[in-house]
């Protein structure tokens, strides 16, 4: 079995270790004896969505997102159809914002793909820290790092998870990210997948089922190191004393 992973605009959106997410998809397929083909799609390249099983849309700076927005206009409808037909998408940070209707910065409005009914507004204070989520999709916490100036309002969409520690979509809502069909949009990097193999396998399984039928299952891997890395952050922010210490440090 083989999956083709399209990495959208790695020349523009390559912040926050996005390569780690790609590497995680690749290795977790290979370790199970499956094949992974990574297709870097550079700005200006034509995209054949029918060849793609997973799309990764990563993070970029505000300026670079503006450039990406131009390229997105030409693929808007195809991308939308891909999502509606159950195509798997992982969108992180800037990529998550671009799935929505618009991202309003202090200077201008960047038009998004309008795949999700969400909007993002820039505020000068960036939301930066470690973050721990509890997601109903998984029985282990999802951990990562958030660093965003945008506040994303998700309307009636289902959030990716409930914030256990950290700030999330708006810093106030108590929720983080969006799940829609086979799309996960999130601010979590770190990168997201290596420390959260449950999320990686969830997306891989969805993509494999879409391509090879509902009988496909993933055999478990030895994830000791993954669980140690995940458990370290989850454990750290379950400790009230540590949180208090960090909070004091942050404001002094």
């Amino acid at each position, binding site marked *: 079995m083989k999956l083709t992973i399209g990495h959208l605009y790695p020349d523009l959106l390559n912040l926050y270790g996005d390569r780690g997410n790609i590497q995680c998809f690749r290795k977790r397929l290979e370790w199970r004896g499956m094949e992974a083909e990574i297709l870097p799609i550079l700005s200006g390249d034509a995209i054949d969505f029918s060849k793609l099983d997973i799309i990764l849309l990563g993070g970029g700076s505000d300026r670079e997102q503006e450039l990406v927005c131009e390229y997105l206009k030409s693929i808007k409808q195809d991308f939308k159809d891909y999502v509606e037909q159950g195509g798997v998408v992982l969108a992180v940070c800037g990529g998550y914002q671009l799935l929505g209707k618009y991202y309003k910065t202090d200077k201008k409005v960047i038009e998004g793909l309008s795949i999700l009914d969400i909007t993002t507004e820039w505020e000068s204070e960036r939301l930066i820290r470690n973050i721990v989520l509890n997601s109903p999709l998984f029985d282990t916490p999802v951990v990562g790092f958030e660093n965003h100036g945008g506040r994303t309002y998700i309307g009636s969409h289902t959030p990716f998870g409930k914030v256990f520690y950290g700030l999330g979509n708006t810093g106030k809502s108590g929720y983080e990210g969006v799940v829609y069909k086979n799309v996960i949009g999130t601010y979590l990097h770190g990168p997201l997948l290596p420390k959260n193999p449950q999320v990686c396998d969830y997306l891989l399984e969805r993509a494999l089922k879409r391509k090879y039928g509902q009988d496909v299952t993933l055999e478990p891997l030895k994830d000791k190191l993954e669980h140690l*890395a995940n458990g370290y952050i989850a454990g750290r922010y379950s400790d009230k004393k540590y949180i208090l210490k960090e909070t004091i440090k942050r404001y002094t």
Partner: protein
Amino acid sequence: MRLRSVLAIKCAKCTSYLIKKLNRGSGVTLPGYVARLVDPHILSAMAEMVKEKTIVTMGTNGKTTTNSILYHALKAEGKKVIINRTGANMLNGIISAFVLAADKNCRLNADYACIEVDEIASVRVLPQLKPDCALLTNISRDQLDRFGEVDITFNKLKAAVTSVPKTKLIINCDDVLSYTLASESGNPFVTYGISEQIFDDISRSEIRESIFCRSCGKKLEYDFFHYGQLGIYHCPSCGLERPEPDFTASEITWNDGLYTFSMDGMLIQSTSRTPYNIYNTLSAYAALNALGAERTHFQEMIESFDYGNNRESIFTINGTRVQLHLAKNPIGFQQKISLVLKDKKPKDIIIQINDTYQDGEDISWLWDVDFQYLADAEAASIITAGTRRHDMGLRLKYEDISCDSTTDLRTSVTRCTKDGTGNLYVIVNYSGLYSTNHMLAELEKTQEGGDMA
């Protein structure tokens, strides 16, 4: 001098004395804070007392080494020079450097000041310091959890230099970000750059900032890359191109681990083991020229210069050669990996990754380093340490490189030096540098004692 400034200096000196007496650390930032509380204009007042010139060094990589070269070059000409301590490059640390250098009459006896300035602090520091020159090493991603994104760093630096429009910039024109910044700022500037390809494939790093033209948005074309986004570039659309540098190093050769190069008519047989130190040397030399400083003893000074700076120290412990390296961002780490690979002998490697505020709490950058090369590094063992040792372990696991982890660095080092290959690399990020340096120095000393017994 204003009474208030005198009082500020006295208070700062008392603070420093107390910190040292009470053994509460090295006391390089608190005295500056106290001085600023007493007199908010203390830095301007002190900076005006510098007899000849003031220069600041900024940028992502190479600040400390470059500033140190400047300091030693000026000292070699018999000048009295003020310098801030390694890492004390925020406003308070810089003020400390000045106030603690004052004599008991609160006078400053200095010909030059060489000040390393943090990118974020630069916006507040430069208007007070009003330096004659500002050297910019390069701009790349570093501590994104502090800076937000590299464009924010760019804008901060630009705001800082435009607030002092007479300050002459010394710019690495191989870095399109630095060059654009200089062109947009309106400040006078001189450039330095290297036109030969001296970085190998491994050190080149796939991670590049902004290879898109900042004026027209088109993708830049490159003849070749040095590393990161540094290289020989031009924009196919608007005509922006890497200029011919005012200062350059050429005929660069690498013999027995050390670099030799030509610069301004001198053939320099340097002690540098890494190509980025050629940049640091070249930029410092260009800056000395811009300052109008004497350079009679430059060659002599640089040929015996210790680029180590505690950041690349070598120890001998139990007969094992132990090298300590600092790697705190992707570009820096990539260079270290290239260095490790140039050493063909078998080796053991310990990598310590912490995530304190000084290190950057976000360790995503580990995934921007091309660790896959370590598979060919003849590494008999790789051990990860530090608060984020499991993240580091994961990074290696996803390149199919196996490793162990430790919570006790000292024991692991000792074991490696006794049962290992006789060749140990210890790579740490910022917060672990001083304690590890101290620990290795101690181990070196105690085993000497042990030998005699």
